[in-house]
């Protein structure tokens, strides 16, 4: 569990990038908090700097779009999902619970099988 910032410092429509490896982006989408891997799966760009509209974030470099709820791309040029992470607020502080690499790998494999 990683403390990110005070909830007051992340108003609706804003995002923050945390320097984990790999980096994670936390969004306040109209009051709902979401965390995903920050780096676009198409090419090196920071999604925390993207365009937030509803539950979608558009990459600032080539306009790939990701659903914050699932991490899945909703349009090209991205084809692979970003990982999603659980977000909680405790005593006014936003925390990210990083999805473990193992779980993420299993999830992406399941996704691959299902597709």
């Amino acid at each position, binding site marked *: 569990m990683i403390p990110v910032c005070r909830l007051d410092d992340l108003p609706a429509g804003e995002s923050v990038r945390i320097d984990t490896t790999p980096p994670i982006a936390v969004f306040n989408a109209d009051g709902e908090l979401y965390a995903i891997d920050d780096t676009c799966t198409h*090419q*090196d*760009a920071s999604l925390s*700097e*993207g*365009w937030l509209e509803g539950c979608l974030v558009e990459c*600032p*470099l080539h306009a790939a779009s990701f659903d914050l709820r699932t991490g899945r791309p909703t349009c090209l*040029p991205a084809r692979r999902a970003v990982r999603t992470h659980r977000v909680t607020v405790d005593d006014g502080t936003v925390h990210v619970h990083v999805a473990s690499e193992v779980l993420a790998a299993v999830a992406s494999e399941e996704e691959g099988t299902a597709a």
Partner: protein
Amino acid sequence: MRTVTVVGASLSGLYAARELRAQGFDGRLVVVGDEPHRPYDRPPLSKDFLTGRSGEDQLALSDAEETTELDAEWLLGVRARGLDVRGRTVLLGDGRTVSTDGVIIATGASARRLPGCELAGVHTLRTLDDARALRAELAAGTRRVVVIGGGFIGAETASSCAGLGHDVTVVEAAPLPLVPQLGPEMAAVCAGLHRRGGVDLVTGTGVAGLRGTVAVTGVELADGRLLPADIVIVGIGATPNTDWLAGSTLALHDGVLCDDGCVTALPQVVAVGDVARVGGTRAEHWTSATEQPRVAVRNLLAGHTAETVRPLPYFWSDQYGARIQFAGRRLDTDTVRIAEGGVSDDAPDEGGFLALYERDGRTTAVLSVDRPRPFMRARRELGRGVTVEAAAS
């Protein structure tokens, strides 16, 4: 339409194939590509691929699943060498022919070359094979590298070479690189990035010739200077691949002439990407190559120009750790104003800047160095044709 042939298997060719299926074309789809490779993304070739930060896997534009869905016949490693006068038969370099009802021309452009390009150590950087060859040479120890041409490919390649520890000089014939794209003030700022990256920038002199017998040994400049070199990279632009259309009825002039809807003089032949001169403009931009196919395919299937496309020009470049992004249509008479961040000593400040190009009180274009968020806002506003206000606040 029972058969559609896409000539060109790179970015715009793949996007065209996708659009055909997405728009309901369920006939025979043939894709012809002169390179032996499946569609791959070229922008990383001068950047992460060259430095070894990313590999060939990451260049792939498609995957097995999508390939199955597209259900196309891929004729790769074979060049198209002609289109008959009715636009109904594509002739291939190996003698085969493809009879077709519709044609999408997506043959792209080729790197311009210089006399002496056959010397060992002289490279262009356009294709995966080009990048593989250059990458291998750059991995063989520290070299003296001369990059001819200070445009985006030249600058990115110089930046990658410097990052790998090579001794790099960039030669630009104009007084400053990138003036046609950015205008003189902002071109000067971007030129400052070379200096900051430890690369020598020689401007205002052309190249007289390449020296060497078997391998290149140097670059002779028009002003008489000789730059010793082990590796020379020629980045002096690209010419559209239209030679194969010489015997067709299509109008060719620095590209395949199309109307605003990517349609040529033949309604069942459309053109997209670097090879297409759409409504008088030929853009060698990644984003144009991805945006034109939707409209081109719609018009092809409709049999006439039902929709036109005029996307806002957008390009980006990563060099010396800075990300440059530009969108809009500027004229030389536009004024330019730094709206955020700053410039000092003719180079971007730490944290970059956002510059607005203006004409008669309107924003015509926007340039950003390391300011992706306000850039994106400004680009969207430009695309919607509204005044860029927020970015200036």
